[in-house]
């Protein structure tokens, strides 16, 4: 690592702090402006049973967007709000959901104000931002980690899970993962299984398809920032697979590339463009086929597609909730790690050499009872009961249970000696 001061670091020492001051000044101005708006004033003194804590910038909004539906459902019986630290994020969320949005600057006095003004009973955390650590100091609240999508990433069994009162996990797979990794963590006592409540939200599909063709969703990931994370198949498999599927009248293709596809590697960018062209040409020659390039919000595709082709990525876990056939590609990068302990390790991955056989593989995946049964077993292991409404019910019951426990604890007569008051208030 280059650590000499030289020009780079010498400049950074001036530019970086100056950039941060500018950022701080803009943020401060925006906070002041938004706090005066009636949309924020309206909720400034309200109590909320449940807060979703989201201190991040808009780049991570995907982590909170997937919770709008379940939280809106929860808000029918409990007061729910989203707590933001960044004005820009707060404004976007406010436009996207009917839930109240609260804005705080996140300093110590601000968090005191959250406690005294809003008196939350449960705070939900969709990510592991270090900024969470401040508000985790509140002791009259149940703090629960809800993640932003099930996966076998090491992140999902990090040791810092211990800081939360509860981890709302998808199912048995998550509990086993935590048991393997964490010492001194009572998995049964500190986790609550909720499945994936997002699957119980009705998404409005922007397209309708007839049943003349089987719909194949091809949702590759991007090329990754590091070679050990180079799972993206657009350049290695994508062109061959898509052209083979487009040439087969049994299939309709929904191509949904990761938004970051091609930002690092030109060959991925070129392959992405070529696939889009192929789909345009196919659609022009037969509009009734219904092929499309999709950049709409994710959700409706789970219902619309019959089979998904993807890479080793989080979207495979979303698809698993459907228990429908799944085909995963083998990354051509040798250093890209394939976790043999995950359900993906149990699948036969498609190599780049086999890409031209994808119609045949898709057909087999749709009809082979062994493959269908295997997906159902994995689905049950990761998500438990996925019958309609089951996940949402478990999510709402988990919140109710935490509130009940919290109220029982807060309103009991605490046997605390008077002299302990000298230690000080419960700091945040």
């Amino acid at each position, binding site marked *: 690592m280059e650590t000499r001061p030289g020009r780079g670091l010498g400049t950074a020492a001036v530019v970086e702090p100056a950039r941060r001051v500018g950022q701080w000044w803009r943020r401060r101005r925006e906070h002041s402006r938004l706090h005066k708006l009636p949309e924020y004033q309206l909720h400034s003194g309200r109590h909320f049973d449940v807060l979703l804590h989201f201190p991040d910038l808009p780049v991570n909004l995907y982590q909170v967007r997937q919770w709008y539906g379940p939280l809106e459902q929860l808000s029918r019986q409990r007061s729910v709000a989203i707590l933001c630290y960044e004005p820009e994020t707060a404004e976007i969320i406010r436009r996207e959901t009917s839930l109240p949005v609260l804005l705080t600057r996140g*300093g110590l006095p601000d968090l005191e*104000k959250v406690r005294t003004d809003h008196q939350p009973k449960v705070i939900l955390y969709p990510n592991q931002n*270090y900024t969470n650590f401040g508000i985790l100091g509140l*002791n009259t609240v149940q703090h629960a980690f809800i993640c932003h999508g099930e996966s076998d990433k090491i992140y999902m069994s990090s040791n810092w899970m211990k800081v939360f009162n509860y981890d709302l996990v998808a199912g048995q797979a998550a509990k086993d993962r935590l048991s393997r990794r964490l010492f001194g963590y009572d998995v049964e006592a500190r986790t609550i299984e909720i499945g994936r409540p997002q699957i119980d939200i009705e998404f409005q599909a922007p397209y309708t398809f007839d049943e003349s063709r089987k719909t194949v969703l091809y949702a590759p990931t991007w090329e990754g920032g590091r070679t050990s994370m180079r799972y993206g198949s657009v350049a290695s498999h994508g062109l061959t697979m898509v052209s083979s599927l487009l040439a087969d009248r049994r299939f309709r293709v929904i191509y949904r590339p990761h938004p970051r596809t091609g930002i690092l590697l030109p060959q991925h960018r070129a392959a992405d463009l070529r696939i889009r062209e192929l789909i345009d040409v196919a659609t022009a020659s037969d509009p009734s086929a219904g092929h499309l390039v999709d950049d709409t919000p994710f959700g409706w595709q789970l219902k619309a597609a019959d089979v998904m082709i993807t890479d080793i990525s989080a979207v495979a876990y979303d698809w698993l909730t459907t228990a429908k056939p799944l085909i995963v590609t083998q990354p051509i990068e040798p250093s890209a790690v394939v976790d043999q302990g995950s359900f993906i390790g149990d699948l036969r991955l498609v190599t780049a050499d086999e890409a031209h056989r994808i119609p045949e593989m898709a057909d087999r995946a749709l009809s082979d009872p062994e493959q269908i049964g295997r997906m159902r077993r994995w689905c049950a292991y990761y998500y438990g009961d996925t019958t309609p409404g089951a996940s949402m019910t478990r999510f709402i019951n988990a919140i109710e249970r935490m509130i009940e426990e919290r109220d029982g604890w807060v309103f009991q007569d605490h046997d605390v000696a008077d002299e302990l008051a000298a230690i000080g208030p419960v700091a945040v």
Partner: protein
Amino acid sequence: MVAHQPDVTLRSRAERPTVAPIRLRRALEYARRYHRLSVNLRHQHLVLPDSRARAADPANHTHFLINFPGSPSGVDELTAWLPMLHRLSRWAPVAILVGDVLAYRAVSAETALPCYFGRVASEAEYVAQQLQTKVMLYVNQSKLNLREAGFHDILHVFLGAPGPGRQNWLNNRLRLYDYVLAPDDESKAWLAARMMAYDVSTTVRIVGRPVPPAGPLSGLGARLRAADVAEAGVDVDAVVEELLQIRDERDRLVTERDARLAEQGIVLLKGGQA
């Protein structure tokens, strides 16, 4: 049973700080952060290469790594524990991980224990991983503790300061740690009474000495910060004994877990967060 909220949970409006001092505190805090970042970016090249080289040397390893990502203004929170760390180093390797250039220099000048520099997450993880750390120690409630406490196969232990320093660390964030070494029974009682479903009987260990009866002079003394935690009432031998036991427990847990998983044909990826 009386149904009321504990008196400590909510602060009345009258008690809240007024707006002007809050703004002043915020401005000062930003100025402090600006200065700190600027100093670190300008001077980290003076300490980082040496720190990385020593961490990379396979001859260097540690059982205990004290994590101090905080600013130099709070460095006495760390130096107060140095006598205990020196005592501990007679029995097991001990090292210190510091996240600020000025704090690094201040700590290095105070102790012969090996100091390492880790300002950003990747550097801190590199040091902890290379040194094959078994137990990570924390002396304050820095929010960056959440970063280091994510490391697997390490037991994370919070060293609770005695005296007036208690109000800085007694809070709900203590759930993060595998063990809390509390200086007195009052702290343990506070945790038992004011943290929901927190099992103090297995998590909190008392490592303090009996405090002499309070008189006017000792009362005054209690409000002043002692030079080190031993002077303030921590039993250094008790801390060392507890930490060595925790290290042995960690070794046992890792061995048993790996053997259990090997029987199931599972090999965990190791190192840092992995």
